[in-house]
């Protein structure tokens, strides 16, 4: 198995996620917290993120239905989701969350509904891409993360 090749592929996958705006610098901050003692830290946090964000999305979905035009409530739920996105560097998803909140501020129901669909889509896409990324890293072996100088 050519581990260095797999590592190169993972690095290239990550680069494209950054180039396409799916991820921002905060993701690097999360990965940088990994070390020999916690070699899978990033994947663990991301896994928690997707579990948590799925729950938050479901809450928003329910709120959109159960509490029509309750923009404060909708905004409050989305604020939580946006915060989570921000913590792991989920940049595109975060932008969609912010759009939704703007629509809430404007009292624009249709805008909220459309924006929420986008949030869900970005969530799904990001999950797929990061799952593929971490799988590649796992295949690349324990030293799968790119070497960092001086850490």
């Amino acid at each position, binding site marked *: 198995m050519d581990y260095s090749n797999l590592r190169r592929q993972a690095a290239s996958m990550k680069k494209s996620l950054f180039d396409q705006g799916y991820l921002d610098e*905060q993701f690097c*901050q*999360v990965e*940088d*917290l990994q*070390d020999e003692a*916690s070699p899978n*830290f990033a994947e*663990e*946090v991301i896994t*928690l*993120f997707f*579990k*948590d964000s799925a729950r938050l999305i479901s809450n928003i979905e329910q709120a959109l239905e159960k509490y029509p035009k309750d923009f404060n409530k909708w905004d409050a739920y989305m*604020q*939580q989701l*946006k*915060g*989570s996105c*921000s*913590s*792991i*560097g989920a940049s595109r998803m975060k932008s969609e969350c912010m759009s939704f909140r703007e629509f809430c501020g404007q009292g624009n129901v249709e805008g909220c509904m459309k924006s929420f669909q986008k949030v869900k889509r970005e969530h799904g896409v990001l999950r797929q891409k990061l799952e593929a990324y971490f799988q590649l890293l796992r295949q690349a072996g324990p030293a799968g993360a790119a070497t960092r100088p001086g850490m």
Partner: protein
Amino acid sequence: MAAVATETPFHVLAVDDSLPDRKLIERLLKTSSFQVTTVDSGSKALEFLRIHHDSSTPISLQEDQLIYNQEVAVNLIITDYCMPGMTGYDLLKKIKESSSLRDIPVVIMSSENIPSRINRCLEEGADEFFLKPVRLSDMSKLKPHILKSRCKEHYNQQSDGNIDESSSNPTNSSSSSSDNSSSSRKRKAEGDAEILPKANRSRHS
């Protein structure tokens, strides 16, 4: 500063209702050599503090050291602002209202950059306000607050009134732990700026 150095790591209580954020803050703190306890709500934080801190009288008092029950004594509390039920601000208030807890430094975290919110927290006695996402570089701002509060405690414990160089803030000289006026809390917040002029009291991105 007087030598209140101890080899036991400082213990931070981290409060955040978000699971991924809790994991992150825990890792940030551990990477920075803190001992960490995480809880997911303000009420659980208070519960933990009451069990482990209310009876935190020093078990040994020597000239240069205060030795507490080091495994559990909390040296700093870092809490998210937006939490269901008890917010970080509510928790801060409760801590500052408690004579046994109010000297523990409190740091507030928030993903929202709202100046009025930041000011409100600082006025209520928060020592620092971090904008989320919190970074590793933020962790270096924690220890000064811990050391400052321990020096202050150490000074307050000295009944013979020896003024050691750690307590350069004159407003502390007459404060005994039973005197809990809001003005002393505000002085504490202002005092931070005097003692550590380089410290970032708030971070606006």
